[in-house]
C-alpha cells in the first residue's frame, strides 16, 4: 500500500486550459466560424446625427447579383427594445445618432453586401442636433425622442444624513467639476453574430454575449419571438470587457436577415464600424464636493452627475448605480447626497465597460482625496488611513465590509513604493531646472467582489458528472471571455475531487446545455461560479466517499480524495483507485452515477428603492501607486512604475490574477493618458487604431503586484473577484502623480501630451504675468 500526501492546487500558477489551442491557431473564434450555406450581412448606417428619413431606395441593391435580402425599418412593425425601450433594430422616420441603422443586406459575400449598400440611396432632411447634455436640458433644445420631454432619460438619487449640518462641521470643503471622457473597449475581435433558424422557427444564435440567459430575454422582444425559442451558442470571443452585456441592433438585424432568407447569416463589423457602432464607456460631468475636519475626518460627499445618454439607452446611463456606491463607500463617508441625470443627445451611446461607473467615480473621488489631503497639509496616505474602513463597518448604502483589508493595502502599497519619501522629494524637486519631472501618486478604490444583485438572482448553476474513468465534466452557466474562469474551475474541482486538472472538461457555451447564470460582469465569476462549481464538487465528493466508506468499512470522515485515489485522510494510505470505485458504483445492482447539480445564490441583497442594500457578497479594495515622468516641454507622461496592493480574498490561480491585474492596469493607463474617442457634433472623428491610441508594449511600465489575502468567509476557498479594480484605480493614481511632478491637476482625462503641455504653458504664462 502506498501513501499519497495531501497537496493543494490552490494558489498555484496555471495557464488557461484553452491556451495551447489558442497558441497554435486552432481555436475558432466566432469571427472564424462559417456555417453551411451561410450568407453575410451588412448594415447601412447613417452618416448624420439627427435627420428625418425622407426616403430609402433599395431597388438597385435588390437587383444586384448575389443579394438575397435588403431590409429597412418599413419591412417590420416597430418594436422597441433596450433598457429604456427606446431603440429599434432598423430605424424608421428619423435618425438620432450616427450609429443608426437604415437598411441591411444579406448576400453571398461581404463584398457583395458592401456593393449593395453603395447602391442604396437615402434622402434626409437634416434636423438641428444637440450633443451636449446641459444644452439638451434647455427648454428650446431639439428633442431626440418626441416622447421624452426635456430629453430626460434616467435619474438616480441617494441621500444619507444631513448635508447642511455636515457642511457646518467641516473645516475644509473641496468643490470640483470633473469631466470624464468617451473611451471604447477595442475588443480585438470585432462584433460578430451568426443567426440560424431551424424549420420549426426556433433560433440558434452564435454570439459574443457575456450574459447568455438574460440575452434571450432582451433579444426576443426586438424580434417578436419567444425567449424560450432562442438557443445561445457562445464560441470563443476576442475580448469583451463589458461590451457584450446588452443586445445591440446589429444582433436582431442579423436575425431578421436570417429569417428573411431562411439561411444562416453572419454579420461582422469592420474595425471602423466597431469604433463607431460599438458601445463606449459612459462619459460624465461629475460635480463633486467633499468636506473634512481639520484632523482629516471626512464629513460628507455631495455629488451631481450629468451623463450624456446619447440617442438610446444601454447600460451606460445606469452606471450611477455603481458611482453612488463609490461616493458613499470609498472611505468612511458619514453623510452623502447623490444626484444623477442622464440626458438624451444625438451622440452615440454608452454601454457597460470594466469598472462600470466606478472608473469614472474613482477618478473624481481619488483625485479629490489627494487634493483634500493637500489642502489639509496631510499626506494622502495618512488621510486615507484615517478614513479607511475596518472589517464590520457598514456603508451608508448598506455595503457590509467583512474581511476588509483596506488599511493593509494602503500600508503595503505605500511601503513597497517608498511613496511618502518619494512624494516629498519629487515635490521639492518640482521647481528645479530640467525638463523631465518625476512624480508619484496614490489612489484608493473599492468595488464589489462577490457579484452584484442587480437582477432577481445573482446566481450560477453547475452540473457535474464523473465518468467511468474518473474524468469530470463541469457544465457551468459561467461564460469564458478570456478572463480565465476555466482554469479557476478546474483548480477548484481538482482540489475537491483529487483528480488532475487535465482530467476536467468545462462545458459552458450552449444555453441549451448549461444551467442559468446572470453573466460575466461585476467581478463575479470566480466568486459565484467558483462557489457553485465547488458546491457541486463537494456533493460529488460526499457521494464518492460515502460509497468508499461503505465498501472499505472506514468512516467517511476518515477518507480523502488525492491524485485519483481514495485515501485515508490521516496517513494518505490508498484505499481504492477512484476510477475503479466509480465503475463499481456504476455497474452494481443498484447503480449510481456520480452526477451532481448546484445552483449558488450569493448571500447578497437587492437594493431598496432608496438604494440601500448589501448588494454584493463581498467587497474589496485596491491601492495603486503610480510613478511617472513628465516631459514638461512636450507634455508627454510616461508611467515608469505601478505598485499595486489589492485584496484578492485568497489566491486561487496566481498567474490568472496577475494577468487580470496587469491587463487591467494597461487598460486603465490608456484611460488616463491616451484613449479618447473624439465625438464632435455627434460624429466619431478617430474611428481607427491609428488615432485611437491603446497601450502598446513599449508604453507599459514595470508593475509590482502585491496580493493581500483577506480570506472571504463567503468566497470560494476564500477568494474574491478581482478583475475590475485595477482598471478603476490606476488612472487617478497617475493623475495624482502628474500633480506631484508638475503641480497641476487634471480633472478631465485623458492627460494627452497636448493637454499637459497646454496646462504647463498656461500656468507659466500666468506666473510670468504676475
Amino acid at each position, binding site marked *: 500500500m502506498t501513501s499519497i500526501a495531501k497537496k493543494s492546487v490552490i494558489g498555484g500558477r496555471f495557464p488557461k486550459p484553452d491556451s495551447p489551442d489558442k497558441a497554435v491557431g486552432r481555436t475558432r473564434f466566432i469571427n472564424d466560424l462559417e456555417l453551411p450555406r451561410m450568407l453575410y450581412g451588412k448594415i447601412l448606417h447613417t*452618416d448624420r446625427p439627427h435627420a428625418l428619413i425622407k426616403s430609402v431606395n433599395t431597388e438597385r441593391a435588390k437587383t444586384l447579383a448575389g443579394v438575397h435580402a435588403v431590409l429597412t425599418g418599413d419591412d417590420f412593425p416597430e418594436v422597441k427594445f433596450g433598457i429604456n425601450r427606446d431603440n429599434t433594430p432598423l430605424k424608421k422616420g428619423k435618425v438620432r445618432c450616427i450609429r443608426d441603422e437604415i437598411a441591411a443586406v444579406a448576400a453571398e459575400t461581404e463584398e457583395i453586401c458592401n456593393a449593395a449598400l453603395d447602391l442604396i440611396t437615402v434622402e434626409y432632411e437634416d434636423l438641428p442636433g444637440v450633443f451636449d447634455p446641459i444644452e439638451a436640458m434647455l427648454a428650446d433644445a431639439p428633442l431626440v425622442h418626441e416622447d421624452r420631454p426635456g430629453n430626460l432619460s434616467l435619474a438616480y438619487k441617494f441621500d444619507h444624513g444631513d448635508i447642511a449640518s455636515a457642511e457646518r462641521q467641516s473645516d475644509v470643503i473641496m468643490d470640483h467639476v470633473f469631466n470624464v471622457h468617451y473611451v471604447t473597449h477595442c475588443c480585438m475581435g470585432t462584433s460578430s453574430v451568426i443567426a440560424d433558424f431551424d424549420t420549426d422557427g426556433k433560433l440558434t444564435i452564435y454570439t459574443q454575449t457575456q450574459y447568455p440567459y438574460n440575452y434571450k430575454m432582451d433579444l426576443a422582444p426586438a424580434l417578436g419571438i419567444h425567449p424560450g425559442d432562442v438557443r445561445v451558442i457562445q464560441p470563443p470571443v476576442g475580448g469583451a470587457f463589458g461590451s457584450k452585456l446588452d443586445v445591440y441592433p446589429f444582433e436582431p438585424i442579423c436575425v431578421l436577415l436570417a429569417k428573411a432568407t431562411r439561411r444562416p447569416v453572419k454579420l461582422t463589423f469592420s474595425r471602423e464600424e466597431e469604433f463607431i457602432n460599438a458601445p463606449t464607456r459612459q462619459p460624465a460631468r461629475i460635480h463633486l464636493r467633499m468636506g473634512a475636519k481639520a484632523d482629516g475626518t471626512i464629513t460628507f460627499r455631495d455629488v451631481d452627475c450629468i451623463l450624456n445618454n446619447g440617442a438610446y439607452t444601454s447600460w451606460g446611463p445606469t452606471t450611477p448605480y455603481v458611482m453612488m456606491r463609490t461616493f458613499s463607500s470609498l472611505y468612511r463617508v458619514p453623510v452623502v447626497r447623490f444626484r444623477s441625470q442622464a440626458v438624451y443627445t444625438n451622440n452615440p451611446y454608452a454601454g457597460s465597460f470594466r469598472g462600470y461607473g466606478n472608473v469614472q467615480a474613482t477618478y473624481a473621488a481619488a483625485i479629490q482625496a489627494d487634493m483634500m489631503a493637500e489642502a489639509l497639509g496631510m499626506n494622502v496616505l495618512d488621510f486615507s488611513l484615517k478614513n479607511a474602513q475596518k472589517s464590520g463597518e457598514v456603508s451608508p448604502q448598506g455595503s457590509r465590509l467583512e474581511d476588509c483589508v483596506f488599511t493593509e493595502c494602503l500600508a503595503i502599497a505605500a511601503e513597497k513604493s517608498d511613496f511618502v519619501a518619494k512624494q516629498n522629494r519629487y515635490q521639492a524637486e518640482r521647481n528645479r531646472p530640467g525638463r523631465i519631472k518625476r512624480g508619484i501618486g496614490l489612489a484608493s478604490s473599492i468595488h464589489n467582489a462577490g457579484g452584484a444583485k442587480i437582477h432577481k438572482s445573482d446566481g450560477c448553476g453547475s452540473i457535474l458528472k464523473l465518468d467511468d474513468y474518473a474524468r469530470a465534466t463541469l457544465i457551468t452557466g459561467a461564460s469564458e471571455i478570456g478572463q480565465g474562469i476555466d482554469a479557476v474551475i478546474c483548480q477548484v474541482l481538482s482540489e475537491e475531487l483529487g483528480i488532475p486538472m487535465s482530467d476536467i472538461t468545462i462545458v459552458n457555451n450552449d444555453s441549451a446545455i448549461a444551467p442559468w447564470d446572470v453573466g460575466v460582469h461585476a467581478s463575479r465569476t470566480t466568486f459565484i461560479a467558483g462557489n457553485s462549481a465547488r458546491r457541486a464538487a463537494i456533493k460529488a465528493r460526499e457521494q464518492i466517499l460515502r460509497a468508499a466508506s461503505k465498501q472499505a468499512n472506514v468512516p467517511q470522515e476518515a477518507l480523502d480524495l488525492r491524485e485519483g485515489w481514495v485515501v485515508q485522510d490521516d496517513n494518505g494510505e490508498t484505499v481504492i483507485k477512484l476510477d475503479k470505485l466509480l465503475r463499481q458504483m456504476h455497474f452494481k445492482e443498484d447503480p449510481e452515477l456520480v452526477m451532481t447539480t448546484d445552483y449558488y445564490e450569493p448571500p447578497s441583497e437587492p437594493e431598496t428603492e432608496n438604494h440601500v442594500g448589501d448588494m454584493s457578497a463581498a467587497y474589496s479594495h485596491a491601492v495603486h501607486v503610480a510613478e511617472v515622468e513628465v516631459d514638461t516641454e512636450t507634455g508627454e507622461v510616461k508611467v515608469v512604475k505601478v505598485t499595486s496592493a489589492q485584496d484578492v480574498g485568497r489566491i486561487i490561480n496566481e498567474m490568472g490574477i496577475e494577468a487580470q491585474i496587469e491587463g487591467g492596469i494597461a487598460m486603465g493607463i490608456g484611460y488616463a493618458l491616451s484613449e479618447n474617442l473624439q465625438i464632435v457634433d455627434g460624429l466619431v472623428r478617430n474611428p481607427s487604431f491609428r488615432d485611437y491610441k491603446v497601450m502598446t508594449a513599449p*508604453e507599459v511600465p514595470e508593475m509590482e503586484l502585491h496580493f493581500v489575502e483577506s480570506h472571504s468567509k463567503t468566497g470560494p476557498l476564500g477568494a474574491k473577484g478581482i478583475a475590475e479594480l485595477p482598471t478603476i484605480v490606476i488612472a487617478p493614481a497617475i493623475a495624482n502623480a502628474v500633480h506631484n511632478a508638475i503641480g497641476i491637476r487634471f480633472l478631465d482625462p485623458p492627460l494627452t*501630451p*497636448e493637454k499637459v503641455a497646454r496646462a504647463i504653458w498656461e500656468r507659466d504664462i500666468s506666473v510670468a504675468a504676475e
Partner: protein
Amino acid sequence: MMASQSKATKNAIDDYLAPATLSDALGALEDGEATILAGGTDLMVQTQSGRVGYKQRLVNIRRIDELRGISEHGGRICIGALVTITELLNNTLVAEKVPVLAAMADKFASNQIRNVATVGGNICNASPAGDSIPPFLVLDADVELACLRDGKAATRSVPITEFFTGPGRTVRASNELVTGISFAVPQAGFIARFIKSGPRPALEISAVSMALGGVVENDVFRSVSLSFGSVAPTAMRARKAETFLTGKKLDDETIRAAVETALEEVSPIDDVRASIWYRRHLVGVYLRRLVADVVQG
C-alpha cells in the same frame, strides 16, 4: 435641407504585371494608366478605404533588383526605391555616413511595416507626415525618376524640395517611376538629427516631425538645413530659419529668435491628432532640442 447618402464604388483592376526589369516596368507605365505597387502598406489601406482608386493596371515593381540596394559612387549615396525601412535601419553605410536616416527608420511605424515599406513608397505617398521626408529634405536629396520616351529610358532628377505639390501629390508624371533617391555624402563634421512627436516610440502618425542638419565649428552653425513634417500641406524646408541660424553662435537668444522665424514659415492645421497651438508649440520645443543635440554633437 435635403441631402442624400450614397457612396462611391471602388475601381477594378483589369491587368496585372510584375516586371523583373526596370525597362519592362517603364513599358508597363508608359500609357500612364497604372497604379504602382511597391511595399503596398499605404496602397492597401488607401484603396480598401476607397480614398484612392486603382488605375486600370497594377504594376508590381517589387521584383526589380535594379531598384534595390544602397550604394556610394562619386561622392553621392543612392538609395534604391525598393530599399525597405528595415534595410535602412540595419545598413552599415547608412549607419556610418547618414545615421539620421537610421534614427528616422527607428521611429517609423512598426517592425512589420518597416519590413516591407519602401523608401520610394514613403516619398511617393507624399504624406505631409511621411517620416522619411524631413531627413531627405535636410540632406538636399534628389528624387530619381525614369520613364520611357520614344521607346528609350529617360531619367531626371528632381530636388526633393521641388518634388511635392500638395498632400498626396507630387511632380511625378503618371508614366514615371521613382527609381531611387540620392544625395551628396555629407561633408565632414555634418551632423543631422531627426525627431518626431510621441508619446509612442514609433507607430505614430507624427503631429510634428523635424530634421536639422549642419556643421558646428567654434560654436557657430553653418551649412544649416532644417525641415518640418506635419506642419504644412507638404513636408518643407524652413529656409528663413536656416538663413537665420547660419553663421550664428548658438546661444539661447539665437535659438529663441530662430524658433520665431520658423513659426512664421509653418502653416499647421487643427486635426484629430493635434491643434495648431500644439503643433506650433512642438516646433519650438523640437527646434530647441535639435539645436542642443547638434551642438553637443
